């Protein structure tokens, strides 16, 4: 499934596009954060974009990827390459990649069932010449409700309303049941009027 967003690209879109176009050469990836709602047109501030990856083929591939980013003036925490590789690949911990602006990426390997399923079933969002793989709404919406903050509930509602035509409602309800969350608030069933 592909979705084209009929709007201009933002500075943040350009930075995310830069990262994912490079990432595509080394590993499977999927964007899983509130940035999906922003990409689809939601106006709200963010500083971080969450990206889940399947993993790099080798240490060398990971170093090559990071060297490319450093040439752009981007930085990481931690800064040591061996430590970064160890944290990401061995410990499954989140690493931070900072762009040369105020935005940064939370970068992690797929740890749980939902992240792995998202990696295998991404949807493509296109905006002008940029292309992004994002987590399917059937997983992302219940997950946002599970997180439960006001911001996450708003993101879930926005995603649901925007992507309603392509959402497999039964699959989403089944995933919500497995996660132990109630989607009534997002679906609005019995709440309108």
């Amino acid at each position, binding site marked *: *499934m592909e979705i*084209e967003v009929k709007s201009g690209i933002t500075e943040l879109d350009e930075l995310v596009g830069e990262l994912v176009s490079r990432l595509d050469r080394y590993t499977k990836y999927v964007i899983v954060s509130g940035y999906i709602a922003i990409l689809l047109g939601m106006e709200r501030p963010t500083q971080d974009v969450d990206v889940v990856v399947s993993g790099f083929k080798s240490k060398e591939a990971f170093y090559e990827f990071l060297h490319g980013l450093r040439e752009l003036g981007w930085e990481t925490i931690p800064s040591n390459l061996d430590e970064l590789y160890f944290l990401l690949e061995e410990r499954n911990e989140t690493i931070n990649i900072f762009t040369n602006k105020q935005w940064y990426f939370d970068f992690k390997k797929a740890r749980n069932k939902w992240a792995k399923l998202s990696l295998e079933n991404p949807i493509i969002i296109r905006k002008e010449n940029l292309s992004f793989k994002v987590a399917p709404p059937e997983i992302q919406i219940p997950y946002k409700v599970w997180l439960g903050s006001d911001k996450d*509930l708003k993101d879930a509602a*926005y995603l649901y309303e*925007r992507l309603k035509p392509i959402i497999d409602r039964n699959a989403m309800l089944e995933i919500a049941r497995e996660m132990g969350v109630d989607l009534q*608030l997002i679906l609005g069933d019995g709440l309108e009027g």
Partner: protein
Amino acid sequence: MDLKVEVIRPRPFKWIRSRRRAVFDLYKELIRPVKFIARKRSPKLVFKK
């Protein structure tokens, strides 16, 4: 042995009504405006199989 005995009673009608009210209030204040903006104030999307 210290056994805790829990008495399960049906929830009073008032509690059910107030829960429904709370969900509706949350919907009205948080969700409904976002849905409106998603429908009417957001860029067009084109879906392709």
